[in-house]
């Protein structure tokens, strides 16, 4: 029973984690949270389902859906983020403008495809695999594999390549990076596109299970954001960890408490995490350091 709950949780958590990575990739370069990330997942799902309904093979629809998610994210950057940061680099107006884009995207999808759910291509969701008594579908296994591969790839790219390191430099101080010749805007565009792509991939993985609905982004956007808060906002790999933890906790709560716990439990976890380790569980071992520390921590600044 526990193993079943864990493997089920990992498969769901992989989806949350991918959405969370979509948030994190954008944040770590631009210091902006794109609250329309869940809706970018929805864009991919709706396009693939819509094209499949009109007879197009899903294997052709999937690249188009992913492309739309990535391009949609870039549009969000130019329409809702760049203008507000142009006038005030420290402005938090993107909180509202990206939320506004989320609403616009969902409304547009409802206009195009209607408000009822559409069937999504089955893909690998139809055959089960038994693993030590636990049952999983191939689609769920694919979710975990994709999540792990993408996490490793993004982390390697971020820390082992010059381009990735420049991204981190921009994150630390974009003005200095810009003064040194780094094209900050190009990096921001790429970060948004990658964030949208990750959300779209999450959509492809969850579509066969959840169907296609214009308002799907609300659900997965929120869970992805919670995963981001649990894992930590600074590193994409940490947010994937948050997603996996969230998925497993939700699954265990649903199994051992009751199914309604899946609704409130994530928020209990995120509040607890924010209280204990405000930057997330995987923030450079901050939690361990604090728990194991035998001496008082130094004040943050003189006179504070």
């Amino acid at each position, binding site marked *: 029973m526990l193993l079943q709950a864990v493997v089920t949780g990992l498969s769901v958590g992989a989806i949350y984690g991918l959405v969370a990575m979509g948030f994190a990739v954008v944040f770590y370069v631009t210091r902006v949270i794109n609250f329309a990330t869940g809706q970018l997942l929805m864009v991919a799902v709706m396009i693939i389902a819509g094209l499949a309904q009109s007879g197009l093979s899903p294997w052709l629809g999937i690249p188009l859906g992913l492309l739309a998610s990535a391009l949609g994210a870039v549009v969000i950057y130019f329409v809702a983020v760049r203008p507000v940061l142009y006038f005030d680099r420290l402005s938090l107006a993107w909180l509202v403008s990206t939320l506004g884009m989320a609403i616009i995207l969902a409304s547009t999808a409802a206009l195009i495809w209607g*408000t009822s*759910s559409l*069937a999504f291509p089955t893909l690998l969701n139809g055959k*089960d695999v038994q693993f030590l008594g636990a049952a999983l579908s191939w689609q769920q296994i694919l979710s975990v594999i994709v999540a792990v591969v993408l996490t490793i790839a993004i982390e390697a790219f971020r820390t082992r390549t010059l381009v990735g390191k420049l991204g981190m430099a921009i994150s630390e101080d974009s003005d200095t990076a810009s003064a040194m010749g780094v094209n900050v805007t190009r990096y921001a565009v790429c970060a948004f596109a990658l964030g949208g792509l990750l959300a779209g991939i999450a959509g492809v993985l969850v579509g066969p299970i959840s169907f296609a609905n214009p308002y799907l982004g609300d659900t997965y956007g929120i869970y992805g954001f919670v995963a981001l808060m649990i894992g930590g906002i*600074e590193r994409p790999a940490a947010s994937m960890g948050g997603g996996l933890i969230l998925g497993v906790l939700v699954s265990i709560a649903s199994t051992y408490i009751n199914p309604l716990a899946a609704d409130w439990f994530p928020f209990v976890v995120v509040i607890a995490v924010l209280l204990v380790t405000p930057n997330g569980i995987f923030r450079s071992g901050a939690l361990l350091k604090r728990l194991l520390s035998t001496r008082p921590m130094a004040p*943050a600044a003189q006179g504070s």
Partner: protein
Amino acid sequence: MNKAIFIRPTKAIAVPVALITLIAGCSSGSSSSASAGSSAAAATSAAAVTSGAAATSGAAATSGAAATSGTAATSAAATTGTAATAAASSSAAAPTGAPIVIGAIAGTTGAYGSTGQAVINGTQMAVDKVNATGGVLGRPLKLMWGNDAASATTSSLLFKKFASAGAVAMLGSPDTATTTVTLANSMKLPDLGAIDDGGPAIYPDGPAKPPAPWAWSNSLNTYAWGQIVGEYANKNCPAGLAVLHDPTFYGLGGLAGIQEAYKTPLKINAAISEDWSSGGTNSLDSEINAIKKSGATCVEVWLTPQDEAAFVNQAHSLGAKFTVLGNDETSADDTFAKLAGANADGVLSAELTAAYQPNATVQAFAAAYKTKFNVDTTPFAELSYDAVFMLAQAIKAGNSTSPTSIQTQLNKISNYDGLSGSLTFTPQQHVTINAAQLTLVKYDVASKSWKPAS
């Protein structure tokens, strides 16, 4: 000392982010539990999204559509009228008096969006027909309607808005009846039609106790549907029955009906929190595995059509073989069958016999409905059509639009020959559908239709 922990460079981000987390959490909760009558905070973004969508979701989409006038019939009084005669009447004088305003609230977007749209469509057709046949007391009906998007907050605002605009009665809501019935009772304003499919929304203390005094449900009755399921399980589920249901009055009504008829303890009785605004409920894998472990071979999935389809698909993916029973929405339209595909085969549901075996009047209505809205009719359109005519009849019988008169006259309507059957209200009977009016049906993938279950 600990203060240092919280003073970090990212504080500027962490604070608003935490705030947004809480806001998002509140929105989600309000959406998924709207029907349970929770305080339902926020949902501002959801409301904005869905209202925008509603305007384009088709059919009868102009909010607050004004009454159309037409020719008209005789006085058409009668306390036991018929939808057929009222619908067929013509050659009447155009209603000229001040409009009689009626409000209608339904969720035309979200998981039950197709149901809500059918409610509005059926209501609009009835209003048009009434006005084309002389109106009520020589006055046209004026319909004001709104999409509550399954949000109790939005529903409450709409109810008060329509009441302020002079509505003499409300219709609905199928998703937020706890709100509309509570307001109807407190404001002493009749509320009828598709009201959360009867059940506890009308009889909060059980069907033997007095009903809500200002609410009458024409809708499919969850108690009756649950009873059909329970009776089936008694005969066909020796290994036991598991029930997954939403935690609102809709799901609880079904559960109560099942437990009334099915006396054996349930193998699994699990409330599932659904997101009615997005239709995107989380994985049901844990529940599927728990049911497998329990040994139950029959499962009543009293969830949205999307989640029912997700359940049968995931059960298939995980190698689970259950006899799956649905609810009154499962076969009401093709949402479930389309999403479940081949896995819908053999799923059981129940249908209103009058809708399943339509007479000439129902067939005529179905044809007119298809012509007007370019979609097939559903029981929710038909029962909403009936509700308007029953309201009109109550106003005529009392020769008054006062709420008290309407209440008195609604309680006297007997054997109204409606599209959804022979309908009766009394001071104790505030629902129109009972188990005897239902037929158990099974989905057949080959013919893509629901057929009587043997």
